[in-house]
Structures are given as structure tokens and as C-alpha cells.
């Protein structure tokens, strides 16, 4: 009994220690940045820091659900491109921008449902399905706009993406904060969130317990498609123009953020608190490096190293713990003999 109590504590510590580690890392980055550049702590810079990647971090919130559910969605960035291009194409045809926006959002719902159908109903691996759709949705986006760039959206639409709406906050940032709260409630305090974890841990246990596994997976992919489409539309509003390559390659940044946040790529574990910390780390690190005039390529390299560490460190910790436990166990056994 005392053994299991100790291992419970160990486990809690391990969980805490990852998020604790992220928190310390974030503080170090913030302190480093503010020592390095006086501009860093200004409200403007903070708005800017969020604005530059706001679409990615919104999608990262849904991606956390998907990966905890032991699936992956590689098609999110292509969906961002497709929804943005749909908006552009309908705008070009003279459709009012509000309607074009809704159509773009519908494309996301349908695209997500399409992914979900193959994954949840047919049972194909999500890696394969969404890889195909990464190509498929991007292809559709390029077919729609070819190599044109569509701009000239109404002023109020551009303003939604670029100007602040409430206080210093632009629309996308307000949406992000709202989504963070909603996502935390759903994942950590609702029955649906519990199902997401159980299925991610062991799909068969869930099925044998009467959980509607297909329905949960279907909902997740529809949500993923819809939020990705919304992010694409926000991106269009922020840039004031759309092209076939909107969001190209964003999926990797998004997955990086989620994994760095401590979500296991095998599913079943991780939390949105970790993902939130990871978002702040990546954004502040990039911002700080920009302020220090470090080039984008080096920035990407640094984030890559961080990701490798995020996979290596917990692995090494748990392996070390296993070895320790085995030693302790064998000592116990020899003692009892």
C-alpha cells in the first residue's frame, strides 16, 4: 500500500514536472526577452506576437483533442487554404462577403465530416486519410484560384482581421481566448472530454464499455475541419488577400506546439494547460528572436530542437524511473525471500 502511494506521488510529480518545466522555460524566455529588448513588454508587441501566429494556435487547440484521441489531422493547413480560397472565389463571383464567409465555414464542416467518415466509420488510419486530404484540399484550393491572388475585400472585413475590436484586442485574439476557455471546459470537465481520453488510451476498452467511439471521433474531425476553416478565413481577413498557398506547411507548426505541450503522440495523455504554455513559449521565443534580429530559419531550427527535447526528456525520465523501480522491486523480492 505504501508502495502504490509513493508511485501515485511520483506520477503526480512527473505530470506536474512537465508543465512545471514548461512554465519555468516560459519565464526564462520572458525574462530574457525583456532584458534584451525594451520594446518586448509593450502592449503593442504582445498583440503583435499573438497576431502573427493566431490562426495556428487556434487550430492547435483542436489538434490537442485529436492527438489525445490517438489520431492526427494533417489536413488542417490545407483546409485553411481551401476555406480562404473558397471565400476569395465567391467574392470574385460577386457573392456578398458575409455569405462567402459562411460558405467557407461550411466547406470546413463538410471537409471535416469527409475525413471523419473514412476514419471513424470506415476505420482507415487518420494518418493516411488526412495525408491524402492534405494534398486533396490544397489541390482544390489551387484549382479554385489557380495562380491568382484575390483581394479587395470590403473595408470592414479587413478591419476585423487587422484592427482591434475590444480594447487592444482584435477579433481573432478574442476568439482564441474564448476557445481556450471552452476547450478546457470540454476536455477537462465534460463527459465528452472523458471519452476523448479513454478512447485515446484504449479504444477497445471504450467500445466494450458502451462508448460511442465513432461518434466521438466523427465530432472531433468535424470540429477540426470547421475550426481550421475559420482560421483560414481569419487569416484571409488579416492579410486582406488570399492565394492558393495560404497556410502552406502550417500543420507541422501546429503539431509541434501540441507535442511540445506534453501531449503524447500515442494518445491518451496530455492537457490543454500544457498546450497553452507551449503556445506561449513558441510565440515568445519567436518574438524574442525576431527582436534580437535572428533570422526565421534559425528560429525554426531552435523550435525543432525544442520539439526533439520535448519527446526525449519525458522518455528518458520514465525510462530512468523504470530502471529505478526494477531495482527497488528486485531488492524487495530478495528481501522477502
Amino acid at each position: 500500500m505504501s508502495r502504490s502511494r509513493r508511485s501515485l506521488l511520483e506520477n503526480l510529480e512527473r505530470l506536474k514536472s512537465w508543465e512545471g518545466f514548461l512554465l519555468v522555460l516560459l519565464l526564462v524566455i520572458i525574462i530574457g526577452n525583456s532584458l534584451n529588448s525594451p520594446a518586448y513588454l509593450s502592449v503593442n508587441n504582445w498583440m503583435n506576437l499573438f497576431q502573427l501566429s493566431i490562426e495556428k494556435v487556434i487550430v492547435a487547440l483542436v489538434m490537442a483533442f485529436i492527438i489525445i484521441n490517438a489520431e492526427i489531422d494533417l489536413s488542417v493547413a490545407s483546409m485553411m487554404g481551401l476555406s480562404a480560397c473558397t471565400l476569395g472565389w465567391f467574392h470574385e463571383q460577386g457573392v456578398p462577403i458575409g455569405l462567402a464567409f459562411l460558405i467557407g465555414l461550411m466547406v470546413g464542416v463538410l471537409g471535416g465530416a469527409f475525413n471523419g467518415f473514412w476514419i471513424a466509420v470506415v476505420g482507415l488510419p487518420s494518418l493516411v486519410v488526412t495525408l491524402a486530404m492534405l494534398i486533396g484540399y490544397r489541390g482544390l484550393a489551387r484549382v479554385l484560384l489557380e495562380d491568382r491572388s484575390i483581394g479587395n475585400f470590403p473595408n470592414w472585413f479587413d478591419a476585423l482581421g487587422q484592427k482591434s475590436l475590444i480594447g487592444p484586442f482584435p477579433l481573432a485574439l478574442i476568439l482564441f481566448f474564448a476557445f481556450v476557455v471552452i476547450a478546457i471546459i470540454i476536455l477537462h470537465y465534460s463527459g465528452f472530454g472523458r471519452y476523448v481520453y479513454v478512447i485515446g488510451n484504449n479504444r477497445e476498452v471504450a467500445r466494450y464499455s458502451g462508448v460511442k467511439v465513432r461518434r466521438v471521433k466523427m465530432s472531433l474531425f468535424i470540429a477540426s475541419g470547421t475550426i481550421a476553416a475559420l482560421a483560414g478565413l481569419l487569416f484571409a481577413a488579416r492579410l486582406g488577400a488570399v492565394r492558393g498557398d495560404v497556410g502552406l506547411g502550417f500543420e507541422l507548426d501546429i503539431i509541434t506546439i501540441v507535442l511540445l505541450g506534453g501531449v503524447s503522440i500515442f494518445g491518451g495523455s496530455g492537457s490543454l494547460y500544457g498546450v497553452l504554455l507551449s503556445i506561449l513559449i513558441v510565440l515568445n521565443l519567436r518574438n524574442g528572436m525576431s527582436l534580437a534580429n535572428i533570422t526565421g530559419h534559425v528560429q525554426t531550427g531552435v523550435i525543432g530542437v525544442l520539439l526533439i527535447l520535448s519527446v526525449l526528456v519525458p522518455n528518458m525520465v520514465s525510462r530512468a524511473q523504470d530502471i529505478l523501480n526494477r531495482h527497488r522491486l528486485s531488492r524487495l523480492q530478495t528481501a522477502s525471500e
Partner: protein
Amino acid sequence: MDNNAQQKPSPQLKKPILEMRRISKRFDMTQALDDVSLELNPGEIHALVGENGAGKSTLIKVVTGVHRPDQGEILLEGKPVHIHNSQEAQAYGIAAIYQEPMVYPDLSVAENIFISHRDRGPVMRWRKMYDDAEAILAKLDVKLDVRQPARGLTLAAQQAVEIAKAISLQVRILIMDEPTASLSAHEVTQLFRLVRSLRSQGVAILFIGHRLEEVLEISDRVTVLRDGKLISSRPRGEVTSEQVIRDMVGRQIDDFFAKGEAERGEMLMSVRGLNKEFAFSDINFDVNRGEVLGFAGLIGSRRTDVGLALFGVEPPDSGEIIFEGKEQDIRSAEQALQLGIAYVTEDRRLLGLAMPMSIISNISLPTLRKYLTRLGLLKQGDEFDTAEEYRHRLSIRTPSVRVEVDKLSGGNQQKVMLSKWLNAQPKLLILDEPTRGIDVGAKAEVHHMINDLAAQGLGIILISSDLPEVLAMSDRILVMREGKQMGVFEREEATQENIMTAAMGQNQAALEIQP
């Protein structure tokens, strides 16, 4: 018991090639082997029989170097040896073939035969390999294209490849662990022809079998294990099937919690003509409220498949399930749960519990809807209270219900799994091997609980490979063998002998008393 037969070797046989002397092996609670001595002679087929868990597999694993014995010694041609792993066993000329042949489907027959040869140079000599493979197969009188990939071979042909593999390694001792379990009658005949040809070449064969008639047909000597002990070892000429069964089943029942006389309530579930392809056929039985219906049978009897069909996770192809007077077509666990059917799996780790999650989350899982507000949020306080309630009721030993279940012992995990399903308040509870791998104390608690539940009017289906347990706990016992129902025994008629007789396929006695 009958050990004097052992010291009287048949005159034409030389000295034994393998001797196991007073081997003992213990795993935690269970004494898997207890002072077992066994001899294998060249050119002899030695059959090893026993109930599930009698120690047959442990014995094989000791010979093949998977387990090291705690006590006792192994002698090869009179010299003591220590076998540490299967490579060493192979070097001594010991090979084992299992129920499922382990061939590589994408490699050719010849490549499979020579897969464990370590003497190849850097360059493959295909020509020589094909010729050698053909020579071996010719020696066995097996006609197979050695260039053909192993994929698509019948099970019998795959086993022939495994035997050829053993011969290519100059095998002197061949262990066959239930090699006939998935073969058709015709394929069994072919396999036996191969085995006899090996015998005539002087190979010593240890044959583990579940079908008694086959064992008696092929063997020269029959050894019975029970509870890790050697019960008898007799030359084939001196044994009858009745004797073997009696030796297999003589286990003690007295430390079991026997089921009290409960009156059988009204009909709860009635199953007629249930079929599922490749699993079971024509299963018929009734379960009443307050009744424990035991499902007995050996490994491979497909009892679990029937349980899964009733629970809807692997629905049957045809047949009728009448539950509380209405015909039901159960196609998912969710549907079964709504009707009031719960299934406690034998596979805690893969199907039963989300191991890295807390006791609380596991117990509330099937009935999570009860713990949600109208907005779908968790009532974590209620969840906690339920978990605490079961922790006391089933005395789950844990510092807290927030502990992850993989931190608990097997017996306590079993109790968490039972709590999870009891909390769904089922009318019919299907228990699949509920006491496997748990200690004696936890076992008694589970037996006690089964009794209580039956007294409360639940219908219970108890699937168990532990024969004394089924006998002690059940009101009636359904015996299955290889997907077929061999009979239903009333409590008074059920003895270890006639259950085992039915489970091993000597079915005449059972058929007469089927209702």
C-alpha cells in the same frame, strides 16, 4: 501414484535422451511445477495431458530455456545441462512447435525452413537452399513447392514447414504444443503420419494434446499433470481414457466457497440456435434470475465468443436471443447495457480497464451519463462518491480512488472491473474468468460476491476454466468443445469426470442428459 511404470522402460528402447529430475518452478502465488520428473526416449511419442493451468506450458518453457527451474535438473543423454534461452535449446537439438505455426508469410517455404540457420556466409546460395529444402521435404514425404511463399499455405502445410525447419536443425527432441488444435480431421491424419515418420527416425517427441482420442491414438506413453504435479505416467497399452480423465480432474474443491441453494427465479434470457461463423454453432440455453450458469470447456472451446455475442460487441450471425420475454438483436455494448447485460472480460489489460486512468474514471465509464449535468459537464463529486462506495463494498485496497488502476494488484484491478459493471446495475452479468490470476483471498471474495448477486436475483453466466470453481459456483453447467455445445448438466449430475469427458470430446454421456 503409478510411478513404478516409469522405471520399467520398454526393452527395445535405449537410455533416455532427455531426463527431467524433480523439477519445481514457482510464480508468485502459484506452484506451477512441483517435483516433476519425466523421461523422453528416442523414437518415442510421449503425450502430456492435463487441465488448463496444470503446468504443461511451464514444463515446455523449462525445456526450451524460457524459464529456469527453481529446483531440479535436466539431463541430456545422461549429462546435466543448463538451458538459458531458445538458441541454447536449439543447439542441444530441442525444438518446439506451437498451435499457431510461426512462419513468415512473405518468405518462401525454403527460406522459412532455414530461417534459424546461423552458418550462412555473406552470400545467399539459393540453389543449395532450395535443393536442401526439397531433400528434407522428400524425407518427410511432403509435397510442397519450396519456392512458393508461405502465405496461403494451409495450417497443416505450415506445420509441415515448421517440422521441416526442426529437422534442418538436426532436432532430437521435438515438443509439439497442441499442434492439432486448429486442424481439420484430414489434416490431423497428415500431421500424425509426419510425426510417426519422425519417430521412426529416432526423434523423441513430447506431444501436448487436448483431444483425448488423438492423444491415445498417437502416443507411446501418457503422462498426466495436475496442479503442477505429476499424477501418472503409463505406457499407452496400459491406459484407458477413463483413467486419464480421472487423473486429470482429481482436484480438491474444499477451499471453495460453494454456492448456496437459491431458488431459481423466472426466465431472464433464452438463447436458441446461436451461430457465428468460425466461432460457434447451435448454442441453446436458458438463464433464470438468481441462477449461475457455468460455462465449462478447455482453451479453444469458444466460450468467450458466446459471451461477446450476447454482449453485442461481436454479434452472432444467426440465432435468437430472448431477453425478459422480448426478442433482441444486440449489436453493440451500448445496446446490451441498456437492456441490462454486462460483460466482465477476461482480458483486463486490453479490453477491461483504461490502465493509466484513475479508479474513478474507470468505474463511472459505462454509466457516465448518470454523472453529467444537463450541459454535459462531469459531476466529479458524484463520481468520487460512487468509487468510494465500491471501494468499501468490494474492499478494493488502494490509498485513494484517484490512483491509476495500473498501480493496483491483479486482484484489486479485478474488483475495479467488477465495480464498473455492477454500477451499471445489470440484470444479467457475464463473468469471463473472473478469478484468473488473482490471489486466494481475492478469489474467495469474488466467489462470495457472485453468490450475493445471484441471491439478489441477477442471472449470472460464469465462464471459467477452473473446473472445481465452475462446479462449486454453478446451478447448471454448459460444456463447450471447439465451438459446439456438448451438453448442459444439472448441478446434481455434474461431476469433474463427466464435465471433463464432455470437454475432451467423449460426448455420449453428456448428450443423453441434455434437457
